């Protein structure tokens, strides 16, 4: 079955015709060509496809596209403003919060959601916020550090 849907992604209003069984991740990557959110497991286990959905972190692979009707979605492409990187992105570059980088967009999205709830999170809170984002390179320590430094710089 086809659905006509409309949602706001990274501040832009978009309209699509989607299938009932199409996922939000497929729409974001295949229809919109936004390659930040990644295919990692397609079962909601790894967090590589994390996006903000009405301000909450969701695995875009677990959201059916029709459910996104009317939602406001932010992907990693929506973090930088104009040419200015988001403080989190800058901090990941400066503090080695990236190795292979495949998990990085998901990490940034989870971090952004955390910082909008808690402006100066403790290490424990950051660990907890990232527990659904797998990083095979094991770069967690530097990811946490990147987020901490960014949260301090924001003030």
């Amino acid at each position, binding site marked *: 079955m086809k659905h006509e849907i409309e949602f706001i992604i990274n501040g832009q209003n978009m309209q699509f015709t989607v299938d009932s069984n199409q996922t939000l991740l497929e729409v974001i990557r295949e229809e919109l*060509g*936004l*390659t*930040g*959110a*990644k*295919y*990692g*497991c*397609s*079962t909601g*286990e*790894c967090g*590589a496809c994390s996006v903000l959905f009405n301000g909450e972190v969701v695995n875009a692979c677990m959201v059916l596209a029709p459910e996104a009707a009317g939602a406001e979605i932010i*992907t*990693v*492409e929506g*973090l*930088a403003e104009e040419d200015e*990187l988001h403080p989190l*992105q800058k901090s*990941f*570059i*400066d*503090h*080695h919060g*990236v*190795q*292979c*980088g*495949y*998990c*990085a*967009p998901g990490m*940034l999205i989870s971090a952004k959601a955390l910082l909008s709830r808690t402006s100066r999170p403790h290490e424990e809170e*950051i*660990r*907890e916020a*990232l*527990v*659904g*984002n*797998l*990083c*095979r*390179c*094991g*770069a*967690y*320590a*530097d990811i*946490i550090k990147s987020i901490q430094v960014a949260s301090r710089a924001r003030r």
Partner: protein
Amino acid sequence: MITRKPHIIGKPFPLIEAQKKLTGVSCYAGDESPREGLLHARILFSRRAHARFQLLHIEQARSHPGVTALLTGRDLQARLGTIIEDRELLAVEEVRYAGQPLAIVAAETPEAAVEALALIEVAYEDLPAVFDINDALAPDAPLVHPQVATYRGYERVHAQPNSNLAHHLSFRRGDAAKAMAEAAVVLEQVYTASPLQHAPMETHGGVAQQLDDGSLMLWLHSQAPFLQRQTIAQALHMPPEDVRIRTQCVGGSFGSKVFVSVEGLLAAIARETQGRPVRLHLSREEEFQAIFMTPAMKARVKMGVDENGRIIAMQATYDWNVGASIDAFYLQMQAIVLAGTGPYAIPNVEIHTRAVYTHLLPAAPMRGLSIAQVHWAVEQHVDELAELVDMSPLAFRQWNLVKGGDQLFPHFVMHANGLETCTLETAKAIGWQADAGPDRSGHIARGKGLAMGWSPILVSPNCKSRVSIQCDATDLCTVIVDGVDIGQGYYAFITQLIAFELSFPIEWITVEPTDTANYDPHWQAIYHNLLWSTGRALLQATAELKRQILSYVSEMWEEPMSNLDIVEGDVISYATRRRLSVLELLQRGSDEKARPPVFRAEGIYEAPEPNDELDSLLQSFAATGYAAEVAVNMETGHVAVLQLAGAADVGHAINPEGVKAQLKGGMVQSISLTLLEEMRFQQGVPTTTDFMTYPIATTADMPQKMFPIVVEVPQSTGPYGARDLSNHVVVGASAAIGNAIYRATGVRIRHLPITAQRVYDAFMRHHASQNSS
């Protein structure tokens, strides 16, 4: 005043190339490939380990709406392999492991591809299979490869006809049997390790397209594009110039993206789609079921110690279950023999390693070249020995350590190294000396353990590293390399080195994606030890480029070249104080010349030719040290790592924060490999198929305290004295955790991984044996 740019080698350096990864810019396999007319490929994998089979209803699948092309082993009989062709692109009549490709389809939509494959019925006729080393080596065992002697590359392996022994190597020094008989204390133990999955976050796949001239263009996430080009071209009987591979970002490899897996099949189907591009992207389940495994190990280790606490004899056998293919594991066998003693100067040694075929997934080494598993055995054994001879684990190690100047192999003398420093520093970090001994007062037992590591750094045989740098007004400074950044900081290193040598701002420097089209068709690039080999080539290229720039300006200014230098992007004269920005030079050039200048320089590093000697590819040893403190729940067997210190001797830390990032990543990965990860099979079919059944470490598994320690004992042959690291950071960690668990609980676990269940079972056996005695 003219000042030289501050020394940026050895200083923190940002990951400038990471920006595209952090902003979502397309750079992973297939992201940057054409989308118009894109087809979707899907593979039918065998669900049986060993069987004769027939594919039924093929024509129905082929004519299913949306299907563009379909290939089976009947259409394409092609063998696959880099060293030895012991794999097939598509199985023909017989499958040798579950997960072996049987057919591939390309269709208009992913759904159509799935539907088409669902129409195919596979009629299996099961054959007897072998899954473990002992069964496979039994005299009447069914053979995985009865025709192995006919495979291309057979002459390179030391196989045993009419057996499943795929390859073996040995090393002997002194007379181990005689010395063992004379030893005061002898200990023999068996240590085992389960098979693992590399499990990169980015699963295997890519995009392939046949171009108008019949050649193939592949966008892959390859750790070794040149090796893969050669292998794919050979499998498809194409000239290598007709296969082009381009790689930009790689979403994790850990050894799984060096040798060809499904990429050869992707290339094959792209020849059937009339020029339309084809995308293949394995699901996580397929990745777990059909891509390489890291082989299971069984190590039998025996050491003899004299009255003075010196290890005088060692006999060890390391056996590896390489599944249905030795191809991707062949080179590791040499590393295993060379590292087989652990970092100890033992006068009488006999080391054997055997790779055994079974009806399981093809093997490929994990990060650390499987030397991590070797150390799992050796470094626990040494701990057990230390206790037997009543020495502290630290002192016993120091007493027996390899030293710089030791003649270890016929052509290899050990270089100055940081082995001892690594151990001492990690011990200090976790408070080893102040340790009052294990605390078993409550139901949580705490204890500390140590282990060391040494990993042979081998040069890739018959390979080279070549870089070229071009400076012009349009692109400023463009660098072409034949290595790949897989997240280890390779591009950052290249940028840093060029920025330092040419005194250019880092913003000027762009490292191009690795593309086989930039090299001649038979080029074989070094794919390990990139810091060392690319670094040496870069030093050559930058020296030449600087000479060209200064020579040009020297002519223009009519000043001797010796007056000139480049400082912070400007050419300057120390004599006349003249100054000209390199940017202006590139844009305008000399008034007397018609065109602005283009400077271009190349550097090449050639590895020495390998010969029959075991140590002919050995360049150096990377030293590592680990120390751990664990808390073990004596009721559930659950282990938590409280503190973990990891040290590595990198010669010279060119990018110290980058080194620490690799160390910290290695520590987390090591906790994962040591406590959580284990591939399981049922009748040869993997049953660990997702991150629930095959968990990897999350932020919840991190230790409370991690200590990354950088040790620097310069390597005279490396760039700025540096030595490669990222492959070796996991070596020694598992044994340190295992030793800590023993110290905490008094129970020794000799099988990896140390899951809570295994610890619990060991407690039960321990109590039972104590009660019965």
